[in-house]
């Protein structure tokens, strides 16, 4: 398994966990308030810190387990896989933002627009990592 594939597995898992944490927090806060919870610095900061710290620690671990793979530069196959996965995940992000904007146009709920945008970003990243793994395994 290449370093990029290992990285995709770890980042996919990390961002999924972060997404679940973010959605559950927003859900609980919204239930308590009786309306869509506003975005808070603690929520966004918490999610970002979880992701960054998790990514740094996990990448140090996988790099130390296979230092030769980690030092390999991206080759033509890596570039093709990452480009295709990034391209398709862009559609996921675009669809989510588009849906969020329409939702805002109809309901004028700016807080929900914010959470839909964050959710779309998370969903597109998950899609990118899943597709990266799929393309590495089955061919791009």
């Amino acid at each position, binding site marked *: *398994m290449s370093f990029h594939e290992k990285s995709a597995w770890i980042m996919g898992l990390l961002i999924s966990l972060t997404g679940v944490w973010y959605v559950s927090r927003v859900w609980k806060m919204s239930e308590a308030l009786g309306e869509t919870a506003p975005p808070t610095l603690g929520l966004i900061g918490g999610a970002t810190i979880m992701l960054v710290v998790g990514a740094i620690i996990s990448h140090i671990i996988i790099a130390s387990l296979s230092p030769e793979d980690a030092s390999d530069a991206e080759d033509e196959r890596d570039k093709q896989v990452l480009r295709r996965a990034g391209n398709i995940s862009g559609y996921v992000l675009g669809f989510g933002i588009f849906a969020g904007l329409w939702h805002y146009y109809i309901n004028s709920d700016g807080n929900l627009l914010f959470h839909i945008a964050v959710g779309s970003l998370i969903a597109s990243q998950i899609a990118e990592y899943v597709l990266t793994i799929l393309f590495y395994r089955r*061919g*791009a």
Partner: protein
Amino acid sequence: MAKRPPILNRVKALREAHDGMSQAALAKEIGVTRQTVIAIEQGRYSPSLESAFRIARVFQVGLEDVFQWDDTAEA
């Protein structure tokens, strides 16, 4: 599901005939990772034209001695 490229190759056979050259050594010669050589040998990835020529040059054979079009895959 991604479709396999309709291209057959003899990279593994040529590598083994070339004093049992390792996948890592071939990868280094053509400037790709070992995982890419594995993917080429397994038919999961078609290399760029440049890499295909580099592989043929390593084994000192023609391009069509390494890669062949798979007519059966077109059906």
